[in-house]
């Protein structure tokens, strides 16, 4: 792959927790299937970075190349400023998608193995494991064999083993998979607390609401390349539009407001709509004069689902026209 073809993120900094340049993976020789064509991303230290994409976009393959599970066809991979070899991976924790461990081992044995493989003494793991298990919602389950664990519990022990060595970087592949809503909330809180403690989190997820809730930056992959990247706010804020939420007894908004508003949603007597930034003052005054209570005035923001769908539709259109 030539240098000119390599896509390099604009936000690339000197100090990155994870840096991938021009990653490519082709199965079956030069004419084979390209799972990843050109992926570059930079994850800043102490942030939560989302890796998004539809099925087959290349998310898991990219993560596997970073972690040495798949041999890259091309690309450079760095973790904490060092080439992503076994040595630096001692400072990294990984939760694979749908983790599975030997059902004949207990949760504590899984944690002990994970600790030994990361160079953590058994005594330290034994001391740390009760708190860690409690942290992931498995308090008192350390001596239970994993054969008796549910799908969600396996997910939780997977997270615990990723964190047992207090890693500086955590890579989570679909961490909320198999968890109930309470479990998903726990995982979100866990990721936020990790980031607050300075741990870098690279999150690969299909759950856009989860990504939107916790990520500082996202990279969106599609068909093995980077389709979009940036901060959540930059990607989702709709330029030139402001969202207004108002409550009133009237069945309709003032006429001058109606002529300006778009993307209207009504629930009971609460109205949410967008107006051009230039009209915000006039609309607020009109609502105020009409006796409406204004609950919020914020920059218009699309949901990640909307953004994602639009992005993929645009890519499909470009391919058709090409």
């Amino acid at each position, binding site marked *: 792959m030539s240098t000119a073809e390599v896509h390099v993120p604009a936000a690339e900094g000197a100090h990155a927790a994870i840096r991938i340049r021009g990653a490519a993976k082709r199965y079956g020789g030069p004419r084979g299937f390209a799972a990843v064509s050109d992926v570059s991303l930079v994850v800043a230290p102490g942030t939560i970075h989302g890796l998004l994409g539809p099925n087959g976009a290349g998310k898991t393959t990219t993560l*596997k190349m970073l972690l040495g*599970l798949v041999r890259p066809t091309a690309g450079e991979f760095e973790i904490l400023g060092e080439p992503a070899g*076994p040595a630096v*991976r001692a400072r*990294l924790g990984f939760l694979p998608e749908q983790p599975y461990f030997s059902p004949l081992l207990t949760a504590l044995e899984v944690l002990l193995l994970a600790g030994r*493989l990361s160079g953590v003494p058994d005594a330290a793991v034994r001391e740390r494991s009760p708190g860690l298990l409690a942290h992931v919602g498995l308090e008192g389950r350390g001596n239970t064999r994993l054969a008796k664990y549910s799908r969600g519990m396996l997910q939780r022990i997977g997270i615990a083993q*990723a964190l047992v060595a207090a890693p500086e970087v955590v890579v989570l592949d679909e961490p909320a998979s198999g968890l109930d809503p309470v479990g998903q909330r726990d995982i979100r809180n866990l990721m936020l607390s990790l980031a607050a403690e300075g741990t870098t989190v690279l999150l690969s997820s299909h759950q856009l609401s989860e990504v939107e809730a916790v990520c500082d930056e996202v990279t969106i992959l599609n068909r093995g390349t980077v389709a979009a990247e940036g901060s959540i706010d930059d990607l989702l804020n709709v330029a030139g539009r402001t969202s207004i939420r108002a409550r009133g007894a009237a069945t309709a908004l003032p006429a001058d407001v109606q002529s300006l508003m778009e993307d209207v949603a009504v629930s009971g007597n609460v109205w949410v709509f967008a107006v051009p930034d230039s009209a915000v003052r006039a609309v607020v005054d009109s609502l105020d004069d009409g006796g409406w209570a204004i609950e919020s005035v914020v920059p218009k923001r699309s949901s990640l689902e909307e953004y994602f769908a639009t992005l993929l539709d645009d890519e499909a259109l470009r391919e058709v026209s090409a």
Partner: protein
Amino acid sequence: MYRTWAIARAVVADAIRRRIVWVVALFSLVLAAAIPSLPSYGVGVEGAVYREIALALIYVAMIVLALVLSVTRIPGEVERRTVYPVLARDVSRWQYVVGTWLGIALTLLAAAVAFGLIVFGVGWVVYDAPMFQLWQGVLAIWMEAAVVAAFCVAVSTMTLPAVVAVAALAFLFIAHVRADLLGGPGHPLWYAYPSLDAFNIIAPVAHGSGVDALYLGVMTLVFLGWAGALLVLGSAAFSRKDL
């Protein structure tokens, strides 16, 4: 070495909890204990027959255990993704392969010691004499079973479990027919032919007083050479594998 040892310990912890391992071990132990109840043989050879049957029984049980423990070990871990959290850490592929084999070999060693204790104890009680040479036979059988496990581990990094099992049986057959095929040490191919005959000391153990220390040393070298070569091959193949 610490990480290799950690993987080996996990393999042992997993293996000794497998029901099939206990079924094979218990079945073999019951049979071993029952050997003296077989129809009597000529005066003076009961002990030799006992040792021969006991070692043959241990050999079959150990080979079965080696296949059970090693044929599906790595393919299963790759398929179920249990290998991901291991290799995503500070662990090289060769450490994983060697650690896996080491764990299987240690489990086989525990089984061999258990078999050895039973046949040694039964032989001592029934024939009123300790048969110390039995332990040489048990050692040789363990070494061969560990080599078979190394073969399975190595081949299983490249292909499916069913193919590994068939290949392992073919390997055992080929490696034990050198004398039949080549006629003896005079043949030019004799020393190049892959052979496990060095571990076949049932005859001197059953009908004699065992083998000398020099032979045990050579046997150990053969064991290390086989296991080492197979593990190098398996590590090289596994290091190129996309998981």
